[in-house]
């Protein structure tokens, strides 16, 4: 497999300082250095970024869509975690 196949990398680009790196897509490369170079050519041809992360796709552990309910549903019924849950009198300011 490894003989003829370049690894798949996921590419993350920071568009400017102050913003987080954001996933922009993926590409194949022989190693991480080459992935950075390819990412520069493929994903930043029009000043889209000032910093690039590449991660081998097989190193990412993702939650399963099947676990969506147990993982994320519990937070749906915890409205008290949101500020709008609380009635504060109109006359009370700065809150």
């Amino acid at each position, binding site marked *: 497999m490894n003989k003829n196949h370049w690894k798949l990398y996921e590419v993350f680009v920071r568009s400017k300082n102050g913003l987080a790196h954001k996933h922009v897509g993926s590409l194949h490369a*022989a190693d991480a250095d080459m992935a950075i170079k390819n990412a520069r050519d493929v994903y930043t041809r029009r000043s889209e970024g000032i910093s690039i992360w590449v991660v081998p796709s097989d190193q990412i552990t993702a939650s399963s869509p099947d676990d969506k309910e147990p993982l994320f549903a519990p937070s749906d019924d915890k409205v008290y975690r949101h500020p709008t849950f609380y009635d504060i009198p109109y006359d009370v300011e700065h809150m």
Partner: protein
Amino acid sequence: MGTNISLEEKFQAYVDAENKVEPKDWMPEKYRKTLVRQISQHAHSEVIGMQPEANWITRAPSLRAKLILLAKVQDEAGHGLYLYSAAETMGTSRDQMIADLQSGKAKYSSIFNYPTPSWADMGTIGWLVDGAAIQNQVMLTRTSYGPYARAMVKICKEESFHQRQGYEVVMKLAQGTPEQKEMAQESLNRWWWPSLMMFGPSDDNSPNSEQSMRWKIKRKSNDTLRQEFIDKTVPQAHYLGLTIPDPDLKWNEERGSYDFGEINWDEFYNVIQGNGPCNKERITHHVNAHEEGAWVREAALAYAEKEAKRKENRTSAA
């Protein structure tokens, strides 16, 4: 079987509610197949589409024109890559897609099987071919499969440059000497009908369209997209003083659209079957480039392995 039906129904309701489907979500096998076929075909079109334009890189009439053309061809390579990546999220491999292209199992847009004998073609392709592609791709930014939609957003941003630079090339010729204007007209004559064919068969001959619309892969029919393209493009030709090569073309006040002549579907199917002017040349070139480049891919891997070992040695020594 019962659960299978309910899964498909659930999927349809999910898509109907304008939710996006992501790679690991459950999807009907036919949805996956349709998208792998469509996205890889789209990717192949971007990559094969580099050939007719690369034909003019060394012969561009000015340094400015050459820089623009180089940037455009590089964009097409990038677009191909975004799309291959999107298709790979559905579990197909890049190697498989390339193999299918080279064996003829996978198709690409027939428009790229026409030759580019004139510099004016560089303008006409940008104006009409990229214009038609944009018409289709803007719709696809809202397609139901997330990775495809995201690739389309990026592509559409870049494609607008392609169309505008193309129109500029045609405009310069149309406003130049009579000979130059004739070049522009001659090129338009050759590309007009194949550009209209890019939208695919008419709705009553497009059996897969209905299912694709139901799954919100597509949101407009082939004929709708074609009509929108014609209505946008005819005034652009009029501005240049060029004539659309269709004697039946005429404004229909009642419909608020242009009526147009019958498309030569025999030609369309003939080119798809592999009998266009450049089908063989395009695939042969792709195969040769792929095979002649094999040593580069192998050398890059060998270098990467060596580098990795060197790094390992350095760490163990320290």
